[in-house]
């Protein structure tokens, strides 16, 4: 058996097919992107191993992840942002981890999305399990996983089709996802609406909405449809009491050791805003949490400048408005004197 011919042909054809695959996805508007996976989160979490007072930690869910632009934050406050907000997750496990397993006693900014914050404290429920998985990965990650992630970064930066995602929603172009998108029929119930990617992520976990999701209304509409699909079924009732007590327990411990917590409610719009107003009336949830915790708290609705922001898919700000939101929020925080470690102007 002479394998030389086969080997050379396999290399040429194999490489040519991969190049064609990359060019095809580029022609479809896909750009290289960093995946917001467990390894990327662990790099952020590792910053709290030897914490310093000029760090500000963000916890919460996707809204604070999209709406706070870390480069602007760093530039305008002089503090080092540590992004530990996770998509679709509750901030409670992360707060618990910071309080119990670190010496950090600077500022934590908690993004409050009521549907996730007040959802539950049950370990197996997705808002909690998702956050726990991310946190646990920091403790469990092997050297091999760290090395794999390191090696994947040049590929992620340069090839549009490359994905090293942990969540199904993080990739649109791997074979498994493409096959799922081919599903037809309703045998196991109505097919879930496809949930296309709409974020650009940098290595420091700065997340921005993609230009496509911002400028292409049809594309943004697919995400709106996915939200409606996900949130239209029967949802378990929120556990306001349990989650509030859990938060206050760890927040109080954090305050006792000199830490500062700031609550932020990021904007929502359209259908999202409507269902949140119905399901989580402000007075009953946000105001009650603020009243009980006595932490500085900022609700976007209280500020005129945040009333007409652009949320292309109802839940997250466009890149331009995230810049604006970040800048304006910093001004408000500075004016109130709650950013104790920021540089003075």
């Amino acid at each position: 058996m002479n394998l030389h011919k086969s080997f050379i042909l396999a290399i040429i054809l194999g490489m040519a097919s991969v190049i064609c695959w990359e060019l095809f996805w580029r022609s479809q508007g896909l750009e290289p992107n960093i995946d917001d996976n467990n390894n990327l989160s662990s790099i952020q979490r590792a910053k709290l191993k030897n914490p310093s007072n000029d760090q500000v930690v963000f916890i919460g869910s996707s809204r604070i992840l999209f709406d706070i632009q870390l480069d602007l934050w760093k530039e305008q406050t002089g503090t080092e942002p540590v992004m530990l907000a996770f998509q679709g997750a509750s901030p409670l496990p992360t707060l618990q981890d910071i309080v119990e397993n670190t010496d950090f006693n600077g500022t934590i900014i908690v993004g409050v999305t009521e549907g996730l914050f007040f959802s539950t404290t049950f370990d197996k429920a997705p808002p909690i399990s998702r956050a726990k998985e991310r946190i646990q990965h920091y403790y469990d990650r092997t050297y091999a996983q760290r090395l794999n992630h390191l090696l994947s970064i040049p590929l992620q930066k340069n090839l549009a089709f490359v994905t090293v995602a942990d969540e199904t929603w993080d990739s649109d172009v791997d074979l498994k996802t493409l096959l799922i998108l081919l599903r037809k029929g309703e045998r196991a119930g109505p097919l879930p609406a496809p949930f296309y990617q709409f974020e650009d992520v940098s290595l420091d976990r700065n997340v921005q909405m993609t230009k496509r999701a911002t400028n292409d209304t049809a594309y943004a509409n697919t995400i709106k449809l996915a939200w409606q699909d996900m949130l239209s079924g029967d949802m378990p009732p929120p556990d306001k009491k349990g989650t509030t007590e859990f938060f206050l327990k760890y927040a109080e411990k954090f305050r006792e050791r000199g830490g500062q917590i700031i609550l932020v409610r990021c904007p929502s719009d359209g259908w999202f805003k409507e269902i949140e107003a119905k399901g989580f009336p402000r007075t009953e949830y946000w105001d009650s949490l603020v009243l009980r915790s006595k932490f500085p708290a900022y609700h976007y609705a209280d500020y005129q400048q945040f009333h007409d922001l652009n949320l292309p898919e109802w839940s997250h700000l466009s890149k331009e408005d995230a810049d604006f939101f970040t800048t304006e929020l910093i001004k408000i925080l500075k004016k109130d004197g709650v950013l104790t470690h920021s540089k003075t102007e």
Partner: protein
Amino acid sequence: MLFNSLSFVVFLVLVLALYYSKIFGWTGKKRMLLLASYVFYGLWNPPLVILLWISTVVDYTAGKKLAVLADKRKRKLWLLLSMFVNLGFLAFFKYGDFLLENFTGLLNAVGVDYTARPMDIILPMGISFYTFQTMSYTIDMYNRRLEPARTFLDFALYVTFFPQLVAGPIVRAKELLTQFYTEKKATANQFMWGLFLLTIGLFQKVVLADTLLSGTADTVFGSREVLYSLDAWTGTLAFSGQIFFDFAGYSTCAIGIALMLGITLPDNFRYPYAAIGFSDLWRRWHISLSTWLRDYLYIPLGGNRHGITRMYVALMLTMLLGGLWHGAAWTFVVWGALHGIYLVVERLLKGVVKVKINAWNGIVLAFLTYTLVNITWVFFRAREFGTAWNMIKSMFFLNDEGAKVLYEFDIAKVLLIITGLFICHWVMRNTSMKEVAQRTNPWVFGVFWAILFFLIVISQGSGEQFIYFQF
């Protein structure tokens, strides 16, 4: 380190570059391979390399002593020391929590109120594989079937050789150790064939097991509902494909990587889903484990030398322990028991019914064997007996109404792949991949190879572990 990871690609390129460079002599190359193997293992959890060292030192010393000692009692003591250390590791790390859980259950059953905190012991990757491999050396030395390792380096490399360290094949000393005595170098053709085996092994793992089958198996076995028959069967068939592609994929990668270094490892799978009967199945599935169990358990238990009853008892015990080898849970024991029963029934039937196998009845019997194998996979995959029992009832149409959790597309996909798998195994039953490759036009073979590579690249996967790592 996983074969399906970027770090392994870099690792392998470095190892091959050093191996084929002129920097080292043969001893230097072996030292480099040994160090690389420790890095390969240690990148997962460095402290657990110590277990490998202990196992290596104990069995090397025991082997040396067994080679020179004549005193039967002393020889037995050295053998027992090796057994104690290796089986002790297994008992503690793999079965510690299981034993504690059952002990607690037993006490509670007799009315003693006792609760024990789980020990939460880390299971060292591949411990079942390398302990069995080192034990085979000591047992062979004890039985004077083997010459002792010439040097400690050769023996350490035999225990730790990275291609097959964590998930086999479980290689006997006479098959691997002796290969380290003279310099090995792959020919260009061997190297490329090894690379092809690595490609097809990764294709089995990344594309077939992880991308095309695992999702369906996870949906079905993760469902808390009683399922509709078609869903139960599809999920089970998907798992049967997943576990084959996952494990055979690993073995194929291991054989390919070793071949790229000029080292030959034995086959671990020979198209098992075309087996006609269960004796045939175990000559084709995880061959290195089944021959290990035959040589070091079934035969010492008496084998077929002491009458029919004793033979059946030995067979059942071997399969029960074989089941337990796979995992510390009673579901694995039931899996082993079912295989034991199948083997016993097959032997009983062979004494009564004489069938001359031809192509027509052969494929029917192979299909029957595969169907029965699928029943056992339910117990292997289900985490709890409740789930397994519900699945079995659904598969035998005993649940009138069940939940439909799979979409038409997923059912069609699984049935297509599994039909292809069965036909492929049947066609390949009496031949080998190499023979087929030799008969194939090199250009066609090159295109096939490129397609495999392309599908691996676009599947990407999330670096999922091989199922057998947990064993």
